[in-house]
């Protein structure tokens, strides 16, 4: 095992003693335009130790990973990172990799057309005189690395695309080892693996630990965390909640720590009448765009009542966004669905038809799908309803502006002028503009996909208030959200999705976050029961 103690003498800071840790993050604070995504996070890893990092979606895990891997350069965040007991100032991913920190992302970063060896040494090639690739040396070393990972029968000269996801995950690890990684960060490494592939992966991590390689293991799959990790760190809302030896924790206590916050008065819940069934989606199925045999959503059916707020919970990748975009006619791949609105079957193959039928969708990714950045705030607000303010194709600017100003006032969108490019607004105000854009067509069913992602607390409150107002007026709302308190604070009923299937259907009466999370994480634990 590497012992960093000997190098501690180089430290200038006398307050820091000999560190037992290979890697230590102290009081990390990262702000995005005034919103604290990370607020005093601590994370420490000893050589040969595996630390499990757990937190709900949006707790700040990926932000933390970006801080520690140098994606957010030194100086753009507060706090300090110690590596071998010395401050680490990484200005880029390259710097942190040079130090020995390698991150393996959830989406694999391999170039499919290049060979296994070329991928393993990508950006780190072994060169001969004159900058030529030393293929012999790379093949030999790649073979050795794969042998260390107990991978047999791999032709390192063949393209990566010849091998399946399980192999590719291990190639990523080999790539990290080729960079002499001493700290491996694995972000949801098993999300695309079968259970036997996961098993292999975990035993390899155990081997690496014995060789002194330290790991941070990020996963929603708590059984895996329990098996491979020595220590667990839980974060929530960008704050450090606890760090304890795994032996003192159970999957249940981890879940409790992940969600354990009080629902405060953020949710101005008002009584509203839930009426008859107004909308039905039956047998919604979506196939993966790249892999036509894989189902992203698998035969999901549900009903929605008038004035009801239906929350859809689940982990990232559970198929929630795919479900709602298929309903809205916006799913990019093949999808099938039978939709019934107010007793009549409706046919929706494009967002245009969906809006005409009375459905609206506020998409998940505001920047990519919500705003047209260069257009003014007003132009964005009226984009879906321009025909309302036009005669024979000519826009009645004055009528348009009248609507825009009324909407800006109603939703308290903070903008200096409706003509200002929307890109200049804060996330919350942009979101309000997108929301009002999709409300202007007067939908009967409003679908909100992550309506408060990246939105400040004040705007969140405004958005919730608006949702309750709409529900009281008889608009039915489907809300996809990864924020558990939001799901529980707003919904009348909660659907839980996991792996493309409906895993639970709970009336939101005495429903706890633990129940929802358990249904989402442990697919066997909950079976769909009638609402």
């Amino acid at each position: 095992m590497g012992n960093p103690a000997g190098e501690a003498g180089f430290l200038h800071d006398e307050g820091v003693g000999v560190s037992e840790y290979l890697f230590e993050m102290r009081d990390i604070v990262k702000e995005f335009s005034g919103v604290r995504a990370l607020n005093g996070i601590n994370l420490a890893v000893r050589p040969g130790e595996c630390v499990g990092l757990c937190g709900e979606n949006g707790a700040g895990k990926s932000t933390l990973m970006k801080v520690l891997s140098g994606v957010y350069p030194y100086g753009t965040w507060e706090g300090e990172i110690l590596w071998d007991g010395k401050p680490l100032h990484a200005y880029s991913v390259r710097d942190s990799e040079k130090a020995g920190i390698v991150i393996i992302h959830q989406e694999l970063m391999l170039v499919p057309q290049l060979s296994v060896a070329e991928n393993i040494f990508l950006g780190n090639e072994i060169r001969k005189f004159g900058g030529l690739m030393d293929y012999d040396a790379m093949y030999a070393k790649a073979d050795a690395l794969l042998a260390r990972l107990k991978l047999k029968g791999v032709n390192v000269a063949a393209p990566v695309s010849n091998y399946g996801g399980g192999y590719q995950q291990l190639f990523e690890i080999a790539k990290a080892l080729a960079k002499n990684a001493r700290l491996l960060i694995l972000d949801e490494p098993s999300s695309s693996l079968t259970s036997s592939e996961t098993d292999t992966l975990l035993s390899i991590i155990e081997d690496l630990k014995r060789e002194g390689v330290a790991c941070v293991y990020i996963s929603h799959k708590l059984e895996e965390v329990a098996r491979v990790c020595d220590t667990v760190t839980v974060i929530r809302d960008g704050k450090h909640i606890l760090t304890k030896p795994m032996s003192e924790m159970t999957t249940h206590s981890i879940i409790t720590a992940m969600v354990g916050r009080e629902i405060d008065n953020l949710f101005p819940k008002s009584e509203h009448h839930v009426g008859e069934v107004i909308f039905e989606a039956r047998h919604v199925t979506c196939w993966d765009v790249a892999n036509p045999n894989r189902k992203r959503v698998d035969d999901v059916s549900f009903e929605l009542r008038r004035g009801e707020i239906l929350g859809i919970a689940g982990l990232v990748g559970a198929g929630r966004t795919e479900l709602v975009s298929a309903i809205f006619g916006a799913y990019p791949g093949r999808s099938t669905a039978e939709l019934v609105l107010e007793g009549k079957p409706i046919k929706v193959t494009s967002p245009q038809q969906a809006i005409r039928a009375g459905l609206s969708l506020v998409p998940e990714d505001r920047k990519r799908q919500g705003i047209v950045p260069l257009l003014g705030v007003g132009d964005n607000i009226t984009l879906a309803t321009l025909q309302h303010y036009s005669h024979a194709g000519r826009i009645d600017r004055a009528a348009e502006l009248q609507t825009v100003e009324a909407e800006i006032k109603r939703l308290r969108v903070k903008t200096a002028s409706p003509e200002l490019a929307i890109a200049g607004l804060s996330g919350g105000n942009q979101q309000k503009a997108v929301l009002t854009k999709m409300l202007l067509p007067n939908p009967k069913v409003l679908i909100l996909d992550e309506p408060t992602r990246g939105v400040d607390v004040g705007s969140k409150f405004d958005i919730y208030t608006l949702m309750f107002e709409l529900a009281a007026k008889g608009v039915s709302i489907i809300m996809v959200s990864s924020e558990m308190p939001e799901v529980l604070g707003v919904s009348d009923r909660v659907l839980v999705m996991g792996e493309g299937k409906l895993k639970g259907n709970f009336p939101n009466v005495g429903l706890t976050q633990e129940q929802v999370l358990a249904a989402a994480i442990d697919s066997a634990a909950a079976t769909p029961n009638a609402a």
Partner: protein
Amino acid sequence: MQAQQVQQLFVRYKILALLLAVAVIWLFFHIKTNGIFVTPNNLSNLFRQMAITGMLACGMVFVIIAGEIDLSIGSMLGLLGGVVAILAVNHGWGTWSAIGVVLLLGLAIGAFNGFVVTKMRVPSFIVGLGGMLAFRGLVLYLTDSQTIAPVPDDLVALGQGFVPPRLSIYIGGLIFLALVALTARRRVRRAKLGLQQGALWIDVAKVVAIGVFIGAFVHMLNDADGIPIPVMILLALLAVFSYIATQTVFGRHIYAVGGNMEATRLSGVNVAGVKLAVFAIMGLMCAFAGIITVARTGSGSPSAGTGGELDAISACFIGGTSMRGGSGTVYGALIGALVMASLDSGMQLMDVDNSWQMIIKGVILVLAVWVDVLSGSNRNA
């Protein structure tokens, strides 16, 4: 806030910056040519030269704002010009029926390009390259690589004729009055709806400035032989295209599609339809340009319009259209065309060698876009 205001100021003043650039170029050539550049006759010529590039630029600016590109327009111009010459000369068609057919043909070919881009999902760059070759080949085939001449006089008049001076004055006056009426109507309507108004003096200053501009323009060209008909057509197109861009639903959709296609699609806009229409309009503009080219030269040349796509694209970029789509103006593109035409005309008068003309134009194009990048107006998106 302050940075935004500064940026807004820049965007607002873009037209002034462009006009300033034109003024500097004109002054430079005026001095270098010993005072023959800024004369009614030369400017009349210059505007006539710019008319064809300007027509193409009108269509191209929409294509680029929508986030696409069309490289086939030079060849399409040649093809459509060739067809009008063949119809009028070889088949003895009446000028107006030949023009009508060619305009429809341009619309159809443009729509076909748009169909390949939107429905068959071939990148527009490739569609343009293919069209560039295929259309040029087609016109060579149709004309047997021969120049077709002479075209009828009434067609030639379209390219070489002038609007009578008195009529020009009436038209200029009418445009000015229309402008005053529109501005007044907008203010009245806004006041009635209780919306906030821009300061009165700004509107008055705008109207006066445009009035002075129209007056000077008409007066100067009337000192020559009057406003050339192609220039009059271009001005009409400027009005129509500016109207489409700023006042219509379709125009708004063009900007939205180019600015963020996904968001626009999710707002229920038929994005493929918008793009298809933009390509169709581009084809129509090629027909206009092709007809005027034949009319100006009095013949249908199979090589007409070669390189026209580059001039039109350059004009758009010099005029501040964003490479990434989503922003740009019609008048900007036309001032861009004016810059290019001024450089051509000035350097010809100065007897600059053709090789140097190309080098200088190339450098100016890159410089102009660099300045635009520096000003930060193309950031985002």
